[in-house]
């Protein structure tokens, strides 16, 4: 079973964790100012990249705390884990041989 490196507990089995989808999606500061299109984007639309993805996980059968991870959606490899509130690592590794590239999340 794949091991996930909880920032608080260390490596634990994947089955102890639950997935929380894309990270760094902030609630709109003024929801009433959003038009339908913007509201739809906030509620229903998420990135779905093939490759590194910044996402949320919770260690539900352990410390029960949330954290963020950069994970490659092709290899399922965890490239980095970091605490909620921390910015994502600026450089992310991709497949072997590929050039490191800027994480699009890092600029937003």
């Amino acid at each position: 079973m794949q091991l996930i490196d909880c920032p608080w507990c260390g490596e634990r089995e994947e089955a102890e964790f639950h997935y929380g989808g894309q990270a760094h999606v902030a609630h709109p500061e003024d929801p009433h100012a959003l038009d339908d299109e913007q509201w739809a984007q906030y509620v229903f639309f998420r990135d779905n990249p093939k490759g590194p993805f910044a996402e949320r996980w919770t260690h539900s059968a352990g410390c029960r705390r949330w954290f963020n991870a950069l994970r490659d959606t092709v290899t399922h490899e965890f490239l980095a884990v970091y605490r909620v509130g921390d910015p994502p690592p600026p450089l992310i590794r991709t497949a072997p041989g590929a050039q490191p590239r800027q994480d699009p999340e890092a600029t937003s």
Partner: protein
Amino acid sequence: MHPAANTPPTPGDVLPDHPDFLWRNPDPKPSYDVVVVGGGGHGLATAYYLAKNHGITNIAVLEKGWLAGGNMARNTTIIRSNYLWDESSGIYEHSLKLWETLEEDLDYPILFSQRGVLNLAHSLQDVRDSKRRVYANQLNGIDAEWLEPDEVAKVCPIVNVSSDVRYPVHGATYQPRAGIAKHDYVAWGFARRANDLGIDLIQDCEVTGIDISDGRVTGVRTTRGRIAAGKVALAAAGHSSVVAAMAGLRLPLQSHPLQALVSELLEPVHPTVVMSNAVHVYVSQAHKGELVMGAGIDSYNGYGQRGAFHIIERQMAAVLELFPVFARAHMLRTWAGIVDVTPDASPIVGLTPVRNLYLNCGWGTGGFKATPGVGWCFAHTVATGEPHPYNAPFTLSRFTTGALIDEHGAAAVAH
């Protein structure tokens, strides 16, 4: 080559001729009226009905791998139309009716077997939801019945309907016209007829870009060169987000691994299809004899066509709970496909903000059963520029207008 008359024959020295190939493998032409992206079941069916129903034959179907080697080769082949909402039952029942004559239409054996599907209820809420769905199906002219546990046992004697299990069977919905078909044969049947109608099926041809000029699609860039297109129809299933991004479209999709598995070949023991939402397993027995079982999606986004082993382990526990007779069966192999899931568990089939670019995606875990139906409706959409009435509700814009078609849980099994 014939052996000399005085030497005894050895195995293989007189080989039969190779059977006829079912389709050509042409090089792409510089230009087509319609380019279909994705050579799976949906793409092939769309191309076929574009030719058959609309007389459009200058079509290329582009497949990045080999024909029907994605989800079309990885599904659990279940066909049914017992969905709750009118919009869903419309398109799925349309599809089921096409399945019923597809073998004659394609003139190719697809082993379509209407052996019925049981959707088990394991709780009082399951019972209420199931009966509601039965009544909704009946109002829509779809065959559906509610069965008590003893009736479930008559339809499928190997289901454990005793009350002393963790999730006892309180009954089931039953759709007798539901069933299974041989997924590979379905794809080959569509491919053969599409080829006969002059359509180019181009394998090993990955789309790497979509050209748009003045808000209108003009062609695609591929690993085998640029191909100009009057219209482009996307049918890329799990990779829809990746392909649509080439046209600047952001879709409300999340791609997940969905795992399935088969047992070794067994004598016929399982006469129907059994699905259970609560313990989340669906099981049928293929003609060849293997038990075919599907799991729920792996929770995280993934494009790797593989999932986690604990999902399979949970799956086995669910199966043995329902079918104690399977305890000594050996699992032969497991695999995963990539399914594109929408927020309301219903597909997106229709127009896009880019002119002449059409979208078919978001079928999630349930696309196989829709193959002929969506091919029919998507072909209509592409040919006429207007959605067919059956796919008109399944717009991309419903996520902005709020007119969702929420089949989560309502679709007889969770997506």
